[in-house]
């Protein structure tokens, strides 16, 4: 059994069947990509995994436990972290503070009324945050206002924030969308490094085939809310149904 088991998930928005009978099993320690044309339901599927949306039917099990009906913060505390299509960071806070927040959340849980200590005197947290920033190659930017970071750096910071929680499952929604080639390559390298060095499972939604084929071990193709095929990258490349439904489209574009 995989670390994440999605069974018969359906989601309707009014008359639109956004997800139709999605079955998916993600093996632990793998990198699993979900691809598909615009509007295929990829983000909707992700939203059903993290508590943002509630599927109409079906079940989602993480490590044998159901995530349905739980709040996003509870699902995160179970060990699932999410990177957004546009980087979601704390723009008003410094880079170091951004990194400290998930460290606090990991150590102290979803709420702590620690109102009388100086946060910078919490050596354990500060060291952890600084260590993580070094790993992200951002140590020199730690006192910058995070809103003033470049798009690529914001993405790095967001990924770093997720990793600092040591999640067992990392979900990425188009992490390279809108990025320049150089930033995209940096992100690929970063994700490879994460894959190789950490005890983690990665699910990535991506439009950029270059990113998908350089990272994924398995690929699921989603079309009109239903998984079309699931296989290894090599097989997917040659699959006639996929070429027709998806790859042909991107090559033509």
């Amino acid at each position, binding site marked *: 059994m995989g670390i994440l088991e999605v069974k018969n998930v359906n989601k309707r928005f009014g008359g639109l069947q956004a997800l139709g009978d999605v079955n998916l099993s993600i093996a632990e320690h793998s990198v699993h990509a979900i691809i598909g044309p615009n509007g295929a339901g990829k983000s909707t599927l992700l939203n059903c995994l993290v508590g943002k949306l509630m599927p109409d039917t079906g079940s989602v099990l993480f490590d044998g436990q159901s995530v349905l009906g739980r709040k996003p*913060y509870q699902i*995160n505390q179970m060990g699932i*972290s999410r990177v957004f299509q546009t980087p979601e960071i704390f723009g008003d806070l410094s880079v170091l503070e951004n990194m400290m927040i998930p460290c606090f959340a990991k150590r102290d849980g979803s709420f702590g009324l620690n*109102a009388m200590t100086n946060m910078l005197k919490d050596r354990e947290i500060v060291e952890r945050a600084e260590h993580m920033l070094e790993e992200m190659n951002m140590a020199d930017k730690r006192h910058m206002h995070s809103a003033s970071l470049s798009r690529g750096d914001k993405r790095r910071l967001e990924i770093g924030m997720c990793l600092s929680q040591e999640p067992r499952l990392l979900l990425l929604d188009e992490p390279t969308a809108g990025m320049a080639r150089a930033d995209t390559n940096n992100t690929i390298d970063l994700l490879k490094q994460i894959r190789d060095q950490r005890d983690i499972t990665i699910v990535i939604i991506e439009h950029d085939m270059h990113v998908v084929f350089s990272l994924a071990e398995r690929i699921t193709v989603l079309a009109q809310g239903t998984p079309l095929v699931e296989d290894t990258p090599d097989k997917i490349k040659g699959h006639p149904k996929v070429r027709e439904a998806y790859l042909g489209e991107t090559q033509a574009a």
Partner: protein
Amino acid sequence: MLGLTKKDFTLFVVVIVMVALAPFLLNPFPQGSSLAQMFNAGYPDLMQRFVIFGILVIGFNILFGLTGYLSFGHAAFLGVGSYSAVWMFKLLGMNVIPGILLSMVVAGIFALAIGYVSLRRSGIYFSILTLAFAQMSYNLAYSVLGNPSSNFNLTNGETGLQLLLTDPRILGQSTTPDGSLPVTNFFGIAMRDSYELRLGDWLFTFNAGYYLCGIIMLISFYISIRIFRSPFGMMLRAVKSNQQRMNYTGLNTKPYTLAAFVISGVYAGLAGGLLSSMDPLAGAERMHWTASGEIVIMAILGGVGTLIGPILGAGFNEYFKNILSKINDSVLHQWLGFLPDGIEDFLVTIIHPFVGKGWHLTLGLLFMIVIIFLPGGLVEGGKRLGGMITGRTRRSAKAEAKQRNHPAE
């Protein structure tokens, strides 16, 4: 020192000195001079208001400055605190401590209930909910719970809750031996007791009530600095910055905002309790929505989200309110007497609506000027002024950046 960074400690010491020396600082003009009549502010009741409203806005800033949730009903907690304290003086005795403690507890409970409901929404809807709750409280206090002829008269309606010679005061005395009302005191030190120091033409008043309020304000200020620098404070700033990211970082935003709301409610209750301790009379007008609006104005005037801003905003507001309401036509004629009569009368006519009873108008204009030219409030103004005077804006900015690189010291 005291668990504060060097910079915060310096700020704290400056505020301590200001509070301690306020009777001197606020009385720069010799007694009896016309300038003194107008601009001196070293009177006990005015100084008390400075620090009490300072407490109120310091607390408000913990909610609004850190989380960005704009409560438009904080006067409700001020009023609840005022009534609670007066009830203590009626039932228990004239020592201010039980009154102050009860005002904090009751305001805290109110804040918990109102916050629990209001915080289900954010942005403008949150503000409207708090406003609605405060207006409900006002109406309850003004009429429903304040019918003098009923047995359950909590607030005494329009007249306001006041001490009576027939109050039980089980730990004290209902009346003094000479048959008048006893006065509020702190373990025997009457709040209205003052020591007067005469130096030449100058008269300085050191009032017991002012110093009690001042010390409580300093404690409140100290706690707010600690909150600002704590992990809890950082989480509140994170709420303001990005709630979505917080939720997906495993943090539950609800208890954070609710805790901030209750803390700021307790601060407001404390301020109300102190107002009653200085003058044991509580009226519903303290809960009116205009009073809530004034709290918002003081916070923005001083500088939202800054440490010292609330104190400056409260001081500025109270000081100008006091001066402007004292200016009347005869004062204006006195000031403008050197001008030809026609021009003098003309100017007096023009200025007339802006002073005396029209002080709201001028304060409103001042508020607009600050918001437009100094969006960061008086704190920003002070920074710019400091930069202009030293002419070293760049260097100091650099130094500041350097300091931020070693924040642990």
